[in-house]
């Protein structure tokens, strides 16, 4: 294992070469998919046109690219990364590749909160975000309390989470059925998890919130990786584990809920991204950065596929991620059940 070591004054880092190569490759893929996303649409725009539109030199014809396609592409990147780290956080805490927020019901819970905000209140961006964060926190607390006897790790929490998820999905359908027609139509297309029609107005608050959460997470990333050693060694090497876990759960729920508030519950990105990322990066445990990069690439790729599959009808990206991720989930479940 070759590694790069950087030392200057009090600053020192060591990066495995494979991690570095993976990071560079992932960034290139994300940029490539981003460009493709800006080119693709009802009318194909050449990359030259895209660059002209981005630099603002193309006048009126750039509006489609700047105001329609760019927010969608950026939300694919940012939301994908947020879902990826949320998955890594919960898989790390539960020490189980199945313990991701979309499987244990946090997406559905956040969506319940958002639906309540939409049907009971007026459904502004701030209300939706608050509602879905509240829904996520309540769900996380409920799952934790129900699973507490078995500890944080193990299949018990996952199984209880799956049950909670099923119940919340039913509640969500019920709310949509009871809602007024136009609200129900809006909520219905959103319920699969979709980036269709996402605009700048929807993104200001969520991007600010996610940026803050990701910075907080970056500051705690070393302790997070150290906690992958398990509770005992983490504590005796100096990790304040209880507080760290609380912070991580809040950050993870915050990421999931913020994405859900804008795009609905996009399933399986959080489940698959951390595991794919760690294998590609060849890194130990459930590392955060590979999860973020893989999540960004997955959601972007999935969204492009969703737009292209039945074009000109744009599918919700959640349909694509569910179809692909569902197969992965079945494989993972059979593997986990065999292991225990």
């Amino acid at each position, binding site marked *: 294992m070759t590694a790069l070591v950087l030392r200057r004054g009090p600053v020192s880092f060591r990066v495995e070469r494979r991690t570095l190569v993976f990071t560079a490759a992932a960034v290139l893929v994300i940029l490539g998919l981003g460009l493709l996303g800006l080119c693709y649409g009802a009318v194909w725009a050449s990359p030259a046109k895209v660059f002209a539109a981005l630099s603002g030199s193309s006048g009126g014809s750039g509006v489609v690219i700047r105001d329609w396609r760019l927010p969608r592409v950026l939300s694919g990147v940012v939301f994908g990364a947020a879902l990826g780290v949320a998955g890594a956080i919960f898989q790390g805490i539960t020490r189980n590749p199945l313990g991701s927020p979309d499987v244990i019901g946090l997406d559905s819970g956040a969506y319940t909160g958002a639906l309540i905000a939409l049907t009971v209140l007026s459904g502004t961006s701030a209300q939706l975000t608050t509602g879905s964060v509240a829904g996520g926190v309540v769900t996380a607390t409920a799952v934790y309390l129900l699973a507490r006897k078995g500890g944080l790790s193990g299949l018990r929490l996952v199984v209880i989470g799956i049950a909670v998820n099923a119940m919340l999905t039913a509640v969500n359908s019920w709310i949509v059925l009871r809602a007024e027609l136009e609200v129900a139509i809006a909520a219905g297309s959103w319920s699969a998890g979709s980036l269709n029609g996402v605009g700048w107005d929807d993104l200001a608050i969520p991007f600010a919130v996610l940026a803050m959460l990701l910075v907080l997470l970056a500051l705690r990333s070393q302790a997070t990786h150290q906690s992958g*050693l398990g509770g005992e060694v983490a504590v005796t090497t100096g990790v304040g584990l209880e507080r760290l876990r609380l912070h991580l759960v809040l950050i993870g729920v915050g990421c999931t809920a913020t994405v859900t508030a804008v795009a609905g519950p996009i399933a399986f990105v959080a489940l698959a991204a951390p595991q794919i990322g760690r294998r590609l990066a060849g890194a*130990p445990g459930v590392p955060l950065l590979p999860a973020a990069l893989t999540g960004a690439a997955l959601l972007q790729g999935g969204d492009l596929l969703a737009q292209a599959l039945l074009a000109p009808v744009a599918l919700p990206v959640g349909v694509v991620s569910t179809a692909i991720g569902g197969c992965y989930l079945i494989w993972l479940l059979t593997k986990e059940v065999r292991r225990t």
Partner: protein
Amino acid sequence: MTARLTARDLTLRYGDRVVSTRLSLDVPDGAFTAVVGPNACGKSTLLRAFVRLLRPTGGAALFDGRAVGEYPGKELARALGFLPQEPVAPEDVRVRQLVARGRFPHQSLLSTWSVADEEAVAEAMDAAGVTDLADRPVHELSGGQRQRVWVALVLAQRTPYLLLDEPTSFLDITHQYQLLELLSRLRDQGRTVIAVLHDINQACRYADHLVALRDGRVVAEGPPSRVVDAALVDKVFDLPCVVVPDPVTGAPMVVPSF
């Protein structure tokens, strides 16, 4: 005999089960202390209280006269290193990466691989005899090799105190003695070693100071040659025995007498 690591009137419990009541103990500096006793006598629990994996419900575990729970996490982790019974390695971790995790209490946000880190990891792997395994994935190693890797992690922490919870379980007899030899060398280099040991004969042979626990109380403590006799073994383990000198070292050796 000085002691920086002490327990005063320590009461420990898991849920409703009281493990020890008002236990007091001094861990002599620079010595190899072995903690022995029957199953569920509270020996592991005592160690866990010292490294604050368990919060006492009464009394305190003290380091330099200050309750261990009052130290900032990393500061205590630079003084006390701990090897639990069955640590779990992260998936796909390699030996060098795992040992390097022992440097965590010495690192900060901007300094994660200083020259001191690199030296400490190399030295720890050397002392534990795992340098040759550095690039191997931990999950591919045998039980004995893996245990040495974990010891290396704790050594990389460079703590003056080493606490080990049954470090010889799951090892074959050769690896058990290799590990005990390593611990005595570390003691010779000036570290304080506190180990929970299952085998009283190994404890007698290697320990400078023996602590015998039963039902969460200290039944006897002192140098093995002074405290270990048939009466004590019967009292602690309910085992009728004779105690004879070990033919190699002269330390007390317990032989069951039925």
